């Protein structure tokens, strides 16, 4: 099979980009989408053209590095899988396939199909953790966690941080990502001491990064490779409301040694 590829090419953040059309070489339907791009790139290199830059690493759907908006859907035509697990048999011989980068102000473009998703790291750094020093932890079984809570926390914790939720949302909102993080830690007893501090800090950082707001369209859930539920966004909204109502903690009285 062969496909016609319409690929976004852009040298760097500041230069203008445009679509370029390429005829794919002969493809095997069992190729993954990224392998198709590998083959295209080998062909381009041999022809003396610069290969298409795209993000990828583990190629088994867990590292969250791969991206791409394929024919209007982040991570390609299937639900619950990442681009790296999309295979060419999902396309027909002669199809035109349009490949665009994730588009969001908070994900500035680096080159061609590569965007910078470090805004996610900064949101995590704002509070996506439990403050426990190495060595200070009590025995793991000293804190029982109801299985239901632990399973639900795991549903959220599986987020691979790919950013497809942002890419799909018409408002480029990062709510599903932040909700997954806040939900995961907020569901566990270990996460309670910092629960409200965390949600405030992470939401504020999310706003600072320039993501849009959630208008509950559900695109994020539909494209998430881990099918993370909108329920977690509701949970985030709830926690943030409580955090706002609680207000900032009273300043502790100062003291000296």
């Amino acid at each position, binding site marked *: 099979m062969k496909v016609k590829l319409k690929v976004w090419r852009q040298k760097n953040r500041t230069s203008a980009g445009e679509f370029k059309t390429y005829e794919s070489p002969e493809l095997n339907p069992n190729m993954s989408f990224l392998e198709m791009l590998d083959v295209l790139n080998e062909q381009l290199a041999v022809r003396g053209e610069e290969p298409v830059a795209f993000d990828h690493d583990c190629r088994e759907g867990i590292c969250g590095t791969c991206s791409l908006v394929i024919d209007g859907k982040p991570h390609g035509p299937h639900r619950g899988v990442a681009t790296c697990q999309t295979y060419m048999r999902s396309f027909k011989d002669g199809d035109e396939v349009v490949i665009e980068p994730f*588009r969001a102000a908070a994900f500035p473009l680096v080159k061609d199909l590569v965007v910078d998703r470090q805004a996610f790291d900064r949101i995590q750094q704002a509070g996506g953790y439990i403050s426990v020093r190495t060595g200070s932890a009590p025995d793991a079984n000293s804190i029982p966690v109801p299985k239901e809570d632990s399973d639900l926390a795991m549903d959220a914790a599986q987020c691979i941080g790919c950013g497809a939720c942002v890419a799909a949302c018409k408002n480029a*909102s990062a709510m599903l990502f932040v909700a997954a993080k806040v939900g995961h830690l907020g569901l566990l007893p270990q996460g309670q001491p910092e629960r409200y501090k965390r949600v405030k800090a992470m939401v504020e950082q999310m706003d600072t990064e320039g*993501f849009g707001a959630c208008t509950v369209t559900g695109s994020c859930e539909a494209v998430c490779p881990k099918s993370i539920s909108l*329920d977690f966004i509701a949970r985030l909204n709830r926690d943030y409301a409580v955090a706002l109502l609680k207000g900032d903690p009273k300043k502790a009285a100062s003291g000296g040694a």
Partner: protein
Amino acid sequence: MNLLLRLWRSSLGKKYVMALTGAALVVFLVGHLVGNLQVFGAPDLINQYAHFLKSKPLLLWGARLGLLATVGLHIAAAFTLLSLNRSARPVAYATGGAYAATSRSRYMAVSGSVILAFIVYHLLHFTALNPAVNGVGDFTKLTTDLHGETVPDVYAMMILGFNVWWVAAFYLIAQALLFMHLSHGLAAMFQSLGLRNHVWWPRVQLLARVVSVALFLGYASIPLGILAGIGSRYAADARARAHLAAAPSSAATVLAVGPASAGKEVVR
């Protein structure tokens, strides 16, 4: 104050504002509908209701200002969120994007804007009684006798008003968009306030559907009922008493064009 400022500054906070003001407006819509459905009773029924409201200026103006503020906040939050959302995606996709999003969720701003235009029109139409917009004439001339008192003949205004086909059509269009707006907005409201989980979400969606359909049917029944001939004889008499010109189009033409719509803010 710190809380309000924080609320307004955060995207989630503004969504709470949207949700809470939206909830207040839905409550109003229900009340307003109940009031207006009295048009299906004897003319005195709704006239008396209108008169009662007018006789309590404090309550009336309180409600009006409250509503205005609520609508204002709803719009202001919508507007700032819209501009935030626009700037969050400076370059659009060539292939559309917004995968799997329903059109009613994607076009909230569009439906909201039409509804806003409708509210302005509706206020001019039945609150300010501006003769330029109703296609009938000076509604202030329509009065009636209620327990010996001369009061505005709201019943006649409604009958005459909705017998103008394009007025009825605009009302219906606005109602349809309100239905779209609510069928998404009502459920989203619960989501924004965090009032859902996997058990309640289907129920919330059902509630949103039922309430928005009920409101649509209720409101649409008013112009449709009037076009179907309710109160037409009474209205003709009222028009004659007030020396208003005949309507530019008859009920029959309107029916031929299509159904009409319901109204808000009938009270003056």
